[in-house]
């Protein structure tokens, strides 16, 4: 184009556009008008004294031309279409490994719908972002100032439709896969990026893709924008981008988007003019890097530097009152694709094109180097004057093609394309084999051939990466994926794969820096990107205990983030581990999680304390949450004052408990805490004693309702009773009265109707001596004998078994009742009961099973004696007749009673003396065989020791008098 350098489109171009309108449109005049308007947009954009440099996000062509332009023109002032309040952060880029995202974060939004919280804005940057090249140029070149001119992040939300969902990305044809953690790096943040070159008007985009016979917009973009412009000259590139921007803004945008672009134009041009005036810089020495849609002049009165109009509107500088925090988070190609609705692998393919282009033109991209060495990064001297180009000389800029040539002709082929395709074909076959595909050299040939055929069918002179991936998928994918990755994923990995960035030490919030500092003994720094397996032996390295405590805190606050994953070791009250093993990873998604902690406080402990307090004092907090917070505080922070505050909150919440829903968890935690503090020299703290007393009183008084309420399950009732009986001693010491419990149980008897609850009630009555053992036995026998009650016997028994958790003395009777059930009940009753019984026992493994198993082991014979074995209760029945339902005394002895019995037989003197003193004969009966002890050790009764016993009684008559009273006739 001869007059390209003047920036005005030729009349030939306009004529050609008119010819296009004539050929393709029924309404020639209207189409011609639109096309001519677009040509005029291009003319005005390129005629503006301030160089407008239209770019598209993550576009290799944009980045290549940006590098070329900046190296050639060296502008003094660089305006970038990014939120103005993000600018102070960019210096931190020096320390980061790309891709990373500039982030603004607000946990407590003011003036926005509460469901939008937390608000987050991210602006991801990759090496192949034109904006990154501009930033790197601005930061690394002396005498150059970088200015972000777009509205602030607050306005991103203020200008949104309050009824709309701020989290919905612009729709695209096929969203990227979100099955990968790295793809979720941006979380729910709203993405802002420079140069969104994409039609948002769905019908327009569909027509565009249908006519091009493409599935993805990025494919269209690659074929019609990237390929023609990446090898063109920079002027032509700007012309093409301006034209596409004009097309998409005028036809491809929804009215809402157009209005937003217009408002942003007004804002940006006002800022640009204000800055130019303040710095006294000639517009010709500046560049404005913006999305292609911002090149349209006629919708914005402030557009251009040739007028001095400014946007004077209260909205321009308005603020919502939200406090924003700024920083970096790691990003990844997958996250960018997911956030902005690109198909999977689009950014990877863009990077492939970018690398190819910079190699072809010998360009040296701008890059930032670390300014100073933080603790987590090796120090490097900061450079000024920009990175020096490498020894190789940059290739000369291609000849000017002009817009007409780009619109008319396909891009020229390069020699490297053929070899590159062959390389891809052979490598993909190898990679597919590694992923268990049956792929061979024949497949490589087939892929090559198919790629060529696909490219021809799609009117391309050479296969694009899209063609290659489609070909590989066609030739290698056989219905089922044999390994973890499908061919498409393998292709993307081969063409570059996903990249995950890392935020450098100096750019991190103080909390994260502190974390890195404290984990330094484990060799974890801001540069560490892999999982670190930390093996800690505290005997050898006691200094690692501090690391361990920090890791437990991180693990508690970020349980799902895999930042710190314990492999070996437990955090328990009172336990002091000697060794621990951890998997620690603070990179990628994990680093982002820790960075977000950094927005909440200055140290991990501060954030943890706040979170514990928030959990306990939340408006709808329950007792369990407060008690858990108190326990976590003791475990993780060891701050008794905070634990006391949280504990007192738990006491308060417990008084407001309306039912036994959380009784099991409350009991578990309370018991654990009581046991811990009983072994502690400081004793049980006051708040915990109050908690137990409150719990005893609350739960005891709720028993009648709980027994009668059908909404309260037997398991919940069991948990309530467990609390009451297990922690009773402490509660009584705090002034509670057992009579409260006894009265409640008496009242409950009137309400209980459910068989399982009744079983539990009988056991409870036995414990508070409202019923004796024989009474319980007889009640169960009555149920078993009743023809209508027999089928429900398992349910009664299940309830009784629940009592074993707090009444181990019921174990012998439980075994007896189980024995009776299995001997008497028919299979049709037993078999359906068995799964439920086993499941219930399994749930109570720690409470019920030990006493039950111990009693079973004591009662049941060895397997070889099973044939001749008669259950003790059956034997008793035979000997005592049908009326007797009891079992021999020896049989009914619990473990403790048995031990006492043995002790007395071993040392009978005291007992014999007591007997003589009370006027009885001291005759020791024969021991039952099952409890036989070594009687040879029993001392014989002699006159000497009888005399000694008498002396003892005379000296201490009080006990003897008490015994006498006990044995007094008529009592």
């Amino acid at each position, binding site marked *: 184009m001869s007059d390209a350098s003047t920036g005005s489109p030729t009349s030939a171009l306009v004529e050609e556009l008119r010819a296009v309108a004539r050929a*393709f449109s029924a309404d020639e005049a209207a189409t011609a008008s639109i096309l001519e308007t677009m040509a005029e947009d291009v003319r005005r954009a390129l005629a503006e004294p301030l160089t407008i440099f239209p770019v598209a996000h993550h576009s290799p062509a944009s980045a290549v031309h940006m590098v070329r332009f900046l190296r050639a023109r060296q502008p003094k002032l660089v305006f970038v279409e990014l939120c103005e309040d993000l600018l102070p952060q960019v210096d931190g880029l020096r320390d980061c490994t790309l891709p990373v995202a500039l982030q603004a974060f607000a946990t407590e939004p003011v003036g926005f719908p509460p469901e939008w919280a937390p608000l987050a804005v991210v602006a991801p940057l990759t090496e192949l972002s034109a904006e990154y090249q501009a930033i790197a140029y601005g930061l690394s070149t002396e005498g150059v100032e970088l200015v972000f001119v777009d509205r602030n992040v607050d306005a991103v939300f203020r200008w949104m439709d309050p009824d709309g969902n701020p989290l919905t990305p612009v729709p695209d044809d096929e969203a990227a896969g979100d099955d990968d953690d790295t793809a979720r790096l941006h979380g729910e943040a709203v993405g802002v990026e420079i140069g969104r070159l994409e039609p948002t008007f769905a019908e327009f985009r569909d027509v565009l893709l*249908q*006519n091009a*016979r*493409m*599935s993805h917009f990025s494919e269209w973009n690659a074929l019609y924008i990237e390929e023609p412009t990446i090898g063109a000259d920079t002027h032509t590139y700007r012309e093409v981008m301006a034209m596409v921007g004009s097309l998409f803004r005028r036809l491809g945008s929804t009215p809402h988007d157009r209005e937003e672009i217009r408002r942003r134009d007004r804002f940006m041009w006002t800022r640009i003019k204000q800055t130019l005036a303040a710095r006294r810089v000639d517009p010709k020495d500046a560049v404005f890097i913006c999305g292609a849609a911002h090149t349209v002049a006629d919708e914005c009165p402030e557009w251009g530097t040739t007028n001095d109009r400014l946007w004077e509107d209260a909205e321009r500088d308005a603020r919502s009152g939200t406090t924003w925090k700024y920083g970096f988070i790691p990003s990844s190609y997958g996250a960018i694709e997911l956030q902005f609705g690109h198909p999977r692998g689009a950014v990877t393919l863009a990077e492939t094109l970018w690398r190819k282009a910079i190699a072809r033109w010998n360009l040296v991209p701008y890059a930032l180097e670390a300014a100073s060495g933080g603790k987590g990064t090796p120090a490097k001297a900061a450079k000024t004057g920009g990175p020096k180009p490498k020894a190789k000389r940059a290739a000369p800029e291609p000849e000017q093609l002009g817009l007409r040539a780009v619109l008319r002709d396909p891009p020229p082929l390069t020699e490297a394309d053929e070899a590159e395709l062959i390389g891809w074909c052979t490598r993909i076959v190898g990679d597919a084999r590694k992923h268990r595909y*049956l792929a*061979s050299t*024949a*497949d490589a040939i*087939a892929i090559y*051939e*198919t790629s060529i*055929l*696909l490219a*021809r*069918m*799609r009117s391309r002179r050479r296969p694009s990466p899209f063609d290659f991936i*489609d*070909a590989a*998928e*066609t*030739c290698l*994918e*056989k*219905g*089922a994926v044999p390994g973890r990755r499908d061919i498409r994923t393998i292709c993307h990995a081969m063409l570059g794969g996903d990249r995950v960035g890392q935020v450098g030490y100096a750019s991190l919030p103080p909390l994260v820096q502190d974390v890195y500092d404290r984990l330094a003994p484990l060799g974890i720094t801001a540069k560490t990107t892999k999982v670190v397996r930390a093996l800690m032996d505290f005997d050898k390295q006691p200094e690692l205990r501090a690391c361990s405590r920090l890791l437990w805190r991180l693990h508690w606050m970020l349980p799902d983030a895999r930042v710190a994953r314990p492999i070996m070791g437990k955090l328990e009250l009172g336990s002091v581990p000697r060794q621990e093993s951890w998997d620690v990873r603070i990179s990628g998604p994990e680093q982002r999680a820790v960075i977000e902690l950094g927005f909440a406080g200055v140290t991990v402990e501060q954030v943890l304390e706040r979170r514990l307090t928030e959990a306990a004092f939340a408006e709808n907090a329950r007792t369990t949450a407060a008690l858990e917070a108190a326990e976590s505080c003791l475990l993780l922070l060891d701050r008794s004052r905070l634990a006391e505050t949280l504990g007192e909150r738990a006491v308060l919440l417990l008084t407001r408990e309306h039912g036994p829903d959380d009784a099991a968890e409350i009991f578990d935690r309370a018991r654990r805490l009581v046991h811990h503090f009983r072994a502690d020299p400081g004793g049980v703290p006051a708040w915990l004693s109050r908690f137990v007393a409150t719990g005893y009183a609350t739960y005891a008084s709720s028993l009648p309702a709980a027994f009668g309420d059908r909404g309260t399950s037997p398991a919940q009732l069991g948990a309530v009773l467990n609390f009451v009986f297990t922690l009773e001693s402490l509660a009584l010491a705090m002034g509670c009265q057992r009579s409260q419990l006894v009265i409640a149980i008496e009242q409950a008897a009137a309400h209980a109707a459910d068989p399982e609850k009744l079983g539990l009630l009988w056991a409870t009555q036995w414990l508070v001596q409202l019923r004796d053992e024989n009474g319980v036995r007889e009640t169960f026998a009555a149920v078993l004998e009743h023809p209508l009650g027999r089928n429900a016997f398992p349910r009664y028994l299940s309830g009784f078994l629940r009592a074993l958790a707090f009444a181990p003395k019921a174990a012998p009777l439980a075994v007896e009742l189980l024995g009776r059930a299995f001997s008497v009940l028919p299979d049709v009753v037993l078999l359906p009961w068995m799964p439920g019984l086993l499941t219930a026992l399994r749930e109570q493994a720690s409470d019920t099973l030990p006493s039950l198993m111990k009693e079973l082991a004591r009662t049941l014979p060895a397997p070889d004696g099973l044939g001749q074995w008669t259950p003790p209760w059956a034997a008793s029945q035979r000997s005592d007749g049908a009326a007797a339902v009891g079992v021999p005394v020896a049989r009914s002895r619990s473990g403790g009673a048995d031990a006492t019995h043995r002790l007395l037989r071993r040392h009978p003197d005291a007992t014999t003396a007591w007997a003589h003193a009370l006027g009885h004969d001291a005759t020791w009966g024969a021991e039952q065989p099952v409890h036989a002890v070594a009687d040879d050790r029993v001392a014989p009764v002699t006159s000497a020791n009888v005399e000694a016993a008498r002396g003892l009684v005379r000296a201490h008559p009080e006990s003897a008098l008490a015994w006498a009273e006990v044995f007094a006739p008529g009592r």
Partner: protein
Amino acid sequence: MTELLRAPAETKYAEELAYLASVDDTRRPFSWCLSPKMVRIFVLGSRDKDGLDRTIGQKWYGHAALVEKAIVTLASDRGLLLIGDPGTGKSWLAELLAAAICGNSTLVVQGTAGTAEDHIKYAWNVAEVIAKGQSKSSMIPSPMMTAMIEGKLGRFEELTRCTSDVQDALISILSEKYVAIPELEDDNIVFAQPGFNMIATANSRDRGVNELSSALKRRFNYVQIPIVTNRRAEKEIVEFRVRDLLQRNQFEVEIPPALLEVLLQTFADLRAASQAAASDDERLESALSTAEQIGVVEDAVLHGQFFGARTVEAAALAQALVGTLVRRIPEDLTVLNKFWHAVVQERAKEHGGAWDGFLAGGKQALALHE
């Protein structure tokens, strides 16, 4: 031409094919009737930018990339295996491709559990063998062998319904491109002519029943045909097929767009419910494909024509839907009953109009089943 109940694609679209051949000036592979680009236009329809002076209608709806993959596979050394759920248009695509590429889509072997190697290669005319002995004249070539001899596309429907030994008979055909006839002493090899290739279809629900051997798998390129879930595309397909049906039956009936929306929405809801179901008993046996929607409309149209007021009514559509989708009793009936009262009822309450009749018709049909 004698009127046919269902003419093959090359007959039905003979005029379009002849036109495309006449304007096709690009290179054609082997003995193809059309170049790959023109085949694509034939299947997917023309666009303004194709520069044709007449419009070619779209005949198969789905991702253009799938069609492109299928076409280039047929131009390569490998066979094409179209795999997908029932009713996704695999056979229709195969027929269109065969019609466009070689002008003959009838060289078809239907795979069944009873398909034998003879059906794939050749059989003998027993009477002639007894009379004259074994010779080429007494041999009955299979459609596949005919395709080899004529350099055309052979189609193999439901490949995975055949047993493995029968499937493996295809290996030499696809690999060596010839069939040996050991019964003959001379001239006992039939070589494939340029242009021969094979389009097979397989039902993804048959996966694992007769799995293809690794040797056969690598001689096929697989193209997965997904169920169409895009509402607009689905609407286009249903409209296209229903138009075809009405034309065939010479009916003049208008299907109200609101009614079509009801049908599409119901299928979308059913798919969502099916996806959320926890067990097979809680989801319909049907694949809920576009073909089934077409079947439902077809039933409703026929019912309206022969027993109704010659229009398509919401109640008839609902009855047709229930009739089409209830295959297992009581499982499918239970699922539909629950769906009807939970989803359709809500939609009727929300939107009214055609939904009311649809709701009532469905309930009536379900009651009849019960």
